[in-house]
């Protein structure tokens, strides 16, 4: 019977069919495994992540608070003062050293570093094994991975003190163990903590030595891929900080090494592809981000929310570069003398008034006591606002606003001005002008929270005029290191290590920076020369405080002031923070190290997690 045969044949075939064992094999198409990092593209994508996470550490609201607030340079702004809840609360509490481990701001730094250190450990392990890469390509990639590992260790050590180098699978080993411990001594184990800190410095130095020899030498044009200058700069900083740290085996040798690393760049700027610009202000100009003075930056592209990883471009708590807006005061609260509104809405020009950070009176009045010869005050702060509207010229809303302006006032005219002195303000206010002038005593400050209007000079280095709306985050690259600081590092190392004449060498290097600061475009030669002369200092002027003052003038608001003070030792930290009226009453020695975030302590599997908190918290 033919059916019978057909059926038997069919069944025989089918019965054999499921014998194949590959039913149980997985061959994922879209699920990535660690094997991906063992391919050239995967290793590069890993490095890209290492760069991308820098965005969390430069320019975002939480890390600005950690790196700037509560220093001699900056205190909390009007928004945290008036409404200290939500996102504002930590600003106020960091600004007054009322700090606890629950603050989410801490986790931005703490949590966005360890995964990258782990990834770099992996890349450093995998890259040498990638067969299809040339040796030189491997070395170059390894150098980037080791630089990035050192940089992320630096970010952690700067805030939290010693941090584990063993994430579960061993010292600097890519972690494959679901480890729930915390390889860090308890708070009572001071000696253990010193040893771990020493190990942290050693790791950073070894990585940076390697990177400074194996990265490409010249800083690439029009992008911020890592180069030797960046590694040397950070190396110089790390050696300097280790010399201050109290765990250095030989501080003198560290000062020397710091000086040497910095001087390599100072002595061969062209070779390293860097240059001190003639005009201090040019380093921060929009569309001039790739200038030769900025050595390294966390990159972004204006208006490109996808590239910038902005799902909510007006958000203030993720990866959004809110640097410009955090420094801006409440310019919307100012009116003309006739009571009308000179600034209609939030024009791109003036940034979003987030009002999180205010320059301290010390920075505005003492550090920048000389606002004439030193161009850096006016290059750093916006003191003049002009009449402007968010509405397009000719629209009905624009015309309504225009009609209410005082007679004779046109868009672009002065809206209000913050003068260098009270006398200047008085003089201007005495004149018959529609706008008002505010001298330093009329600026809003936390001491006088009822002060109206709520304005103070706004740091303008990071201003971004290319945004979709007034509330949007910036798409500008955020500077990390600039060449001028290399001079200051060398000067400080020379002074402290008494190298090449010590203070004399320091004064020589600082004078290069100060002379440059005298320059303003349009000055005639005589005026410029006079100003340069008055900017000159001598060896007698130079001490550590002077160098810290100079760093404030040169680097105000650039994102490392807090570690700069904290890592230079307890007395420096306390004496400098004392210059900040709001911070001074609350600051204690233990504040030099931040608390370990509660989330970390909650997740570690030990009987008493509180033992792993930093002392004092």
């Amino acid at each position, binding site marked *: 019977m033919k*059916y*019978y045969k057909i*059926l038997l044949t069919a*069944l025989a075939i*089918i*019965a054999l*069919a*499921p014998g*194949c064992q*590959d*039913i*149980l094999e*997985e061959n*994922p198409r*879209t*699920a*990535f*495994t*660690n094997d*991906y*990092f063992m391919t050239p593209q995967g290793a*590069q*994508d*890993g490095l*890209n*992540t*290492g*760069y*991308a996470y820098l*965005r969390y550490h430069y320019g975002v609201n939480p890390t600005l608070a950690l790196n700037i607030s509560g220093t001699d340079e900056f205190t909390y702004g009007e928004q945290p003062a008036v409404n200290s809840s939500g996102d504002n609360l930590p600003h106020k509490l960091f600004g007054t050293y009322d700090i606890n481990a629950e603050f989410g701001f801490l986790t931005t730094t703490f*949590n966005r570093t*360890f*995964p*990258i*250190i*782990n*990834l770099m450990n992996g890349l450093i392990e995998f890259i040498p094994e990638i067969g299809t890469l040339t040796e030189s390509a491997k070395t170059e990639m390894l150098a980037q991975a080791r630089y990035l590992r050192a940089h992320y260790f630096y970010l952690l050590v700067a805030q939290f003190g010693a*941090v584990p180098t063993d*994430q579960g699978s061993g010292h600097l080993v890519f*972690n*494959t163990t*679901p*480890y*729930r411990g915390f*390889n860090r001594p308890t708070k009572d184990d001071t000696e253990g903590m010193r040893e771990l800190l020493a190990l942290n410095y050693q790791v950073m130095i070894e990585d940076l030595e390697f990177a400074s020899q194996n990265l490409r030498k010249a800083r*690439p044009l029009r*992008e911020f891929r890592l180069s030797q200058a960046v590694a040397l700069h950070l190396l110089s900083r790390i050696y300097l900080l280790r010399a201050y740290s109290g765990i250095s085996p030989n501080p003198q040798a560290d000062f020397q090494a710091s000086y040497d690393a910095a001087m390599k760049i100072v002595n061969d700027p062209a070779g390293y592809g860097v240059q001190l610009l003639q005009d201090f202000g040019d380093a921060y100009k929009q569309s001039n981000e790739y200038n030769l003075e900025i050595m390294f930056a966390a*990159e*972004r*592209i204006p208006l*490109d929310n*996808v*590239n*910038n*990883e902005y*799902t909510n471009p007006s958000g203030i708590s993720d990866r959004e570069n809110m640097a410009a807006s955090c420094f801006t005061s409440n310019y919307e609260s100012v009116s003309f003398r006739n009571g009308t509104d000179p600034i209609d809405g939030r024009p791109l020009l003036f940034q979003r008034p987030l009002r999180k950070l205010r320059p301290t009176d010390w920075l505005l009045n003492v550090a920048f006591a000389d606002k004439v010869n030193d161009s850096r005050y006016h290059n750093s702060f916006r003191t003049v606002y002009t009449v402007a509207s968010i509405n397009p010229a000719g629209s009905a809303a624009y015309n309504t606003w225009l009609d209410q302006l005082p007679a004779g006032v046109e868009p672009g005219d002065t809206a209000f001005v913050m003068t260098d002195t009270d006398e200047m303000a008085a003089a201007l206010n005495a004149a018959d002008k529609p706008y008002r002038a505010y001298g330093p005593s009329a600026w809003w400050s936390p001491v006088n929270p009822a002060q109206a209007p709520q304005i103070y000079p706004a740091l303008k280095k990071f201003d971004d005029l290319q945004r979709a709306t007034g509330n949007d985050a910036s798409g500008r690259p955020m500077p990390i290191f600039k060449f001028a600081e290399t001079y200051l590092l060398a000067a400080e190392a020379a002074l402290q290590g008494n190298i090449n004449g010590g203070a004399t060498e320091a004064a020589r290097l600082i004078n290069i920076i100060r002379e440059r600061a005298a320059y303003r475009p349009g000055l005639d030669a005589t005026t410029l020369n006079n100003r340069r002369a008055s900017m000159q200092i001598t060896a007698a002027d130079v001490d550590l405080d002077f160098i810290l003052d100079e760093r404030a003038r040169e680097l105000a608001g650039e994102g490392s002031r807090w570690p700069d003070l904290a890592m230079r030792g307890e007395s420096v930290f306390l004496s400098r923070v004392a210059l900040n009226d709001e911070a001074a009453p609350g600051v204690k020695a233990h504040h030099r190290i931040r608390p370990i975030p509660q*989330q*970390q302590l909650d*997740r570690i*599997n030990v009987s008493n997690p509180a033992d792993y908190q930093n002392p004092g918290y």
Partner: protein
Amino acid sequence: MKNVALLRHMHDRGRSRCLTLLILLFAVLLSPAVRAQNSVSGTVTDENGVGMPGVNILLKNTSTGTTSDANGAYTLSVPDASDAVLVFSFIGYNTQEVSLGGRSTLDVSMEPNVRALEEIVVVGYGVQKKSDVTGSLVSVNSEALREVPVANVQQALQGRAAGVEVQRIGTAPGATARIRVRGERSILGSNDPLIVLDGIPFEGSISDINPDEIATINVLKDASATAIYGSRGANGVVIITTKRGESGETRVTLNSYYGVTTVSKKYDLFNAEEYATMRDRAGFTEGYQPEEIEGLALGRNTDWQDLMYESGFITNHNLGISGGGENGRYAVSGGYYKETTILPGQDYSRYSLKTTFDNDIGKRIKVGLNSLNSLSYANGSQFVNQQPNTPGAFGGGIMYPILSMSPLMPAYDDQGEIFRTPAGNQTDRTQQYNPLLLKHETDSWVDQIRRFRTFNSAYGEVEIIDGLKYRINLGFDFSQVNSAQFQGQDSYFRSQNQSNRARVRNEEQLSWTVENVLMYEKTFADDHRLTFTGLYSAQKARTWSTMVSKDSITADFIQFYDLGSASPTANHLLNGGESTWGLLSYMARVNYAFKDRYLATFTFRSDGSSRLAEQWHNYPAVAVGWNIGEEAFMADQNFVSALKLRVGYGQTSNQAVNPYSTRGGVTGTNGGVPIRYNYGTTKVVGYLPARIPDKSLDWEYTNTWNVGLDFGLLEDRITGSVEWYNAQTNNLLFNQSLPISSGYQDAYETNVGKVENKGIEVAISANIITSTDGGFTWSADFNWFFNRNKLLALGAGEERDIANGLHVGHPLTAIYNYKKLGVWQEDEADLAAEYGQIPGQLKIADLSGPEGVPDGVFTEEHDRTIIGDQQADWQGGITNRFTYKGFDFSFVTYARFGGLLMSYLHAPNGAYLTNNNGLRNGLDVEYWTPENRSNWFPAPNSALPGGAANSWSTLAYYDASFIRIRSINLGYTVPGSIASRIGAQSLRAYFTVQNPFLLYAPYVTKWNGVDPEPTGQGSAGIVSTGAGFRTGGVNQNLVISASTPPVRSFIFGINVTF
């Protein structure tokens, strides 16, 4: 005779050498009829002596047959009256074989197979007499299914089976429901039961199955019943058997109905006057819009619900032809189902085609094929129905504007054109358009999901020797889902300054199954009955998808059809995914019965899964049964007609580990955002090891004890069962957070937790009033059950995971939030002030503080507690059936008592419909005023004190209890003599009201809700959930949000058989 064979090879990843799939199609033409020589006639009667129409009468071993006419009479030609045997069969009656013995007249009385324990029930890989069953299972037959015309299987099961909880998760037409058998055991994995359709595991949407095609549904509940499905048994198994052809005369059946759907309860909103009062009380500073001022003067009261609601319809037509002869049986049917609702733009339609063939080849071989195909379109189920708050999903939603639009605003302008911006506040006027635009500009948006599915199974069976059978089952399942969304510029969904946008998603799912089954059945020494079932099976399934999304499409008329015709903008999105898994299994089962009294079932299954690193696991189960009713000592009484005690224990698991989970999570995204960077203008992407690989990842194992008692009383007029069970699931998968210092930012999936489900189930069927002469009868099915779910352990040392709503010692649906005390009254002003609050605002309990005592401040950390859960205290259903002469009447009642529902409709932050801040209209809730000191809702206030909103989510919780009449059905079976005039064998016409009313529902009667059943899951339709509960993954809390109001349908239908 012809046959067609289709052979298909599928190569896996292009490198496999092995033949992995084969489908056989056998189409058999029936043999011609045998020539007539003699004739036999007679009458078939039922147990009451009434003539039975439609009884199948077949000459044994031939294809010759007929059916009885309307009066039960028949005539059949037989070749030789002396040794002919006639077979009489009818569903629900015992089949009889009667030798003709030369007679030319043969009257037969049919006996109903009333003995429930004699029923044949489908168990996994076979059938069993119900009296032999040792596991826990529940059946729903086609008759019960027919009582409520339903859109899908889930609806058919709701309230019908003890231990089976069905809750809806959507209100749009075509929306599906969630089935839970004996509670939830997994946090991360699916808790959906395994569906087995005609013997083949069925993945994906159960809505693809046309309920008209279903013959029976059996739900296997305990481990001894489900252990044969091993790693997929823990969530219960729903075995669906579809109708197949029967030998006999060709039979044509038509089931048709048409119904009208109307709103059963509108949302109770503020009318214009109340709205104005609320606004004034709120101190809303923006003031009235000019049109509203005009509205106040005119006394305008626009009822947006009335303007938008219309009546919908529901219709279903199913035409089937079946029949067969000596060697072959066939059934072919086609169905069309369509449902619209009371809101525009939402409908669901399904076309289905089913073909089955069964063919005998000789005496020992059988082959068969079953092909189910369906094509369905769901419109308006994505963004039209509910406002999704998934990042990246298209916004929209229609209920919210209908409920929140100002009643003072006009719907149409002076010219009779739609007034485009009728919102009652400035901000909304630029963003929220008139919902009538959605109704009238139907070309400006598309929201469609198309599903196509072809599910095919074939078998071949050989009886090698008597009692020993080998059977091969083949399954081939393919489905394709295409979702298209479009929102035109300046349309209802996109305001003037927003560009249009479109999204297309395609998903393909393909799976195949091969099963080799060996069955042996033998009775030894009369008393020892042994059945052995052995299985070797393989299954592989792959799913992959692509999604494209784009804005700024050149012209609106393009819609989603060409996303290439668009301006280049940054807002395009491309997405895709792939997932493949395989399962190899061996199974052996032995059923042993001694004297039909002592029963034992031993099951062993070994499953190897591609998803695990340690691939193989063995699942044992054992169950014993004692048919006490068969014992001699029971013979002397008449009260108990059957009694059986069952005890079973076994282990099963669920497929909670997703493919590729053991490989670790290297991700290209961070917080859902692709990792990107740029070097100058060079844009790059990044990858990061975000989750540590866990090679030891394992299934969740559920160990179940089940004790059951089946009984029949008074000659089985009352039958039923009582079950007790306790299921412990250990190895629970949980996303364990690691300290970030480990280098991994995401929690890793590992087996740590433990959950318990225990409960009692009671099911009773009773023939309360019987009749022997076609008189009045009353029968009822009753089921009552509860399940107690409790999380026993999370990760090491973890007591609660607030973000995921998990609390050790409480059900998985526990609600953790502030405890609402009421509203601050005026005499409490001082105390309120201490908390920064004012009279008229919500008062919540200050439970604790950092020192462990109330601290005078409300903090999330110290003042939240478990305030309840969503678990029902008990639930159950009653179906009552009455017949009299040709009339049948039935109604189905479903009750669910206890637990809290989550009405985010009521939470001000959840739906923005009870903010009472003057911005928008909303639910007519009884709010606090100095004159009316409500303790329920806070006073309208447009400028709330800080922190007032923290407690708003406490307004979402209400008693979830309800009793609902799900349907009332009245049918009339036309007497056979009349039916035969139109050539029909039987004709029944019926009228059904679905969801006629709620008998009890405090949420509706006291708290202004519209329906106590959930409208969605997780954060569907919710803006802000406020408190930690499960809004992600597969096991989200069920919620009520602003969605299509409940509807009532009036259906008229007919069942005809020709």
